[in-house]
């Protein structure tokens, strides 16, 4: 193959993969061809997709955020506390805004330790993964339910046929795409991850940049927590377990390099969609869960391996 063809494959191979999967399920399952099914996939990937947007920023700086699932449980819990109370203006505002504020705060805490105490992001967020979970279980182990009906609007509402969570996902992905591609901040994110020495030499405040991506990740988690809690109409201390791996998988399947400096928001979203299409299609086909897990595992490894092979050849 000519190098340009291979390069194109590397950049757009993931779109082909998604297209192939959709085509396969559409042939195998008449119900998969319906618009309802497509919208369902968007709805089901919304929470992980939004978390994966923040995750992509941290991965681009050669970092990682393992605390997202635990932080989601904390943010969701406090959202639930106020969503259960009588719908006064203050309670409604807190139910919607508090999870985002908690996400920002949790992300900022990660960011401060990583950026200025200089501790490895893997260690810091592994620590906060445990600590945030411990906190929320200590705060309240039993679910909060009987949430006020208005609270459904975010997670279960639709605009026409389109679920609100899908709209939020696409809007946030759009903003993140613009930021990464068309702003100085976005260029700095890539430079900090790809070549920190050059970043320092160019006068970029590297610690501040690192801090900022964890705050962004926390913000995404806060929004995801609101959607997740509203979708379930219940807040649980055990929510979000394992979400970090799903979000990382979406970014990595989308071609993001865990060594930093390389990755795209569009590809991360496609990575999340691949996981969502697989889940939805395999469940609809009633494939047993252990086989679903194997298929997803094989796809993650294949995607990363293929990417590595193409890169080694210098494309």
């Amino acid at each position, binding site marked *: 193959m000519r190098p340009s063809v291979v390069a194109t494959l590397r950049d757009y191979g993931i779109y082909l993969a998604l297209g192939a999967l959709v085509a396969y399920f559409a042939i195998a*399952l008449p*119900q998969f061809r*319906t618009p*309802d*099914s497509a919208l*369902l996939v968007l*709805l*089901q990937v919304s929470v992980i997709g939004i978390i994966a947007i923040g995750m992509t920023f941290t991965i681009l700086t050669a970092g990682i955020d393992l605390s997202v699932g635990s932080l989601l449980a904390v943010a969701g819990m406090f959202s639930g506390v106020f969503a259960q109370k009588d719908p006064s203006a203050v309670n409604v505002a807190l139910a919607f805004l508090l999870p985002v504020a908690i996400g920002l705060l949790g992300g900022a805490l990660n960011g401060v330790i990583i950026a200025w105490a200089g501790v490895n992001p893997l260690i810091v967020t592994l620590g906060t993964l445990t600590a945030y*979970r411990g906190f929320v*279980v200590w705060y*309240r*182990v*039993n*679910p909060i*339910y*009987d949430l006020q009906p208005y609270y459904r609007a975010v997670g*279960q509402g639709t605009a026409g046929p389109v679920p609100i969570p899908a709209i939020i996902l696409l809007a946030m992905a759009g903003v993140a795409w613009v930021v990464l591609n068309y702003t100085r901040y976005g260029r700095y994110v890539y430079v900090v991850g790809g070549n920190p020495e050059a970043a320092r030499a160019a006068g970029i405040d590297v610690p501040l940049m690192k801090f900022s991506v964890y705050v962004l990740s926390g913000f995404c988690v806060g929004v995801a927590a609101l959607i*997740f809690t509203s*979708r*379930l*109409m*219940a807040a*649980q*201390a*055990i*929510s979000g*377990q394992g979400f970090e791996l799903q979000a990382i998988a979406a970014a990595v399947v989308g071609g993001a390099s865990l060594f930093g400096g390389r990755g795209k928001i569009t590809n991360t979203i496609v990575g999340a969609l691949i996981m969502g299409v697989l*889940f*939805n299609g395999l*469940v*609809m086909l*009633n494939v*047993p*869960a*252990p086989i679903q897990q194997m298929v997803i595992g094989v796809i993650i490894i294949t995607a990363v391996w293929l990417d590595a092979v193409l890169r080694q050849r210098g494309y």
Partner: protein
Amino acid sequence: MHKVLALAIALMLLTIGAVGAAAAAQPWTFGVSYQNLAFPYVAALQKAAQAACKALAVKCLETDAFNDTEKELKNVESMLAQGVNCLAFEAASLKASSASIVAANKKGVPVVQFNGKADGGQWVTFVGSEQPDSGAQLGVWLAGLYKQLGKPQLKGIYLRGVAGQITDLARNDGLKNRLKAENLLDKISFTEQYADYDRGKGQSVTESLLTRDKSYDFIVANNDDMILGALQVARQFKLIGKVHMAGVDGLPEALDAIQKGELDATVFQDPEGQGGGGIWGCYLHLSGVKLPKDILIPFKLVTKANVSDFVAIAKRVYVK
């Protein structure tokens, strides 16, 4: 005569005083090991165990295994080193948790298992429920539904827990065996998917299955969390009353949903009996009472007809 009576009373008081003093000078300390306190059911067990410790005036040391048998063993070794008189033990695993029981055996500390049971080492008694029985109760409910709906064939969704996990297998066996006994195995068909006992996963799996086909007669789940996730979908798809639903646990939320008529049934498992029973088992054993090898607390099928009997217990043990 009066003198004799006075002497007898004085002796009695002395004896009582002496016994009281002895009990105060040598109070029992029990070690309690839980499987994972992040689960509401286990937290409810803990609440019941703590209440029993208080009622019996024994000191209880508590540890959480976080579902990790290595951590469990370290916890137990540490409690043994602190000189506990008895170990109330909720096993995290059927096989691997035996190590903790063996460690207690070596120190000569008696073990009472509750809720989760490991099958190695020596223990005094097991206070808990036979998990296949919870599945059997789901089977009883399904058999009733079959008669009630009067269709020749029923088809439903069965949300399973974690693949290969012991409780999940036991509940599945209990359900299928019950249907077999009722001659209904070929009349009731299941679409089975694992949803890891998780509410969000229960919701997603149900969404996908119902998007493909809305004509299911019922959804059953191996715990209440999954059925409560499925219930959100049934509400959204406006299938309440058309798709009949039942879970296992008897969480307050499930009981509320039964009272509202959204959920048809759940199978109540009694954390008060199990958690308190672990402590009582230790107490009675040390007091010299001979206990049977198994003290079984039956599962109970909860429907709208009897739900009010269970609300009070659930509200008492599932707080915060």
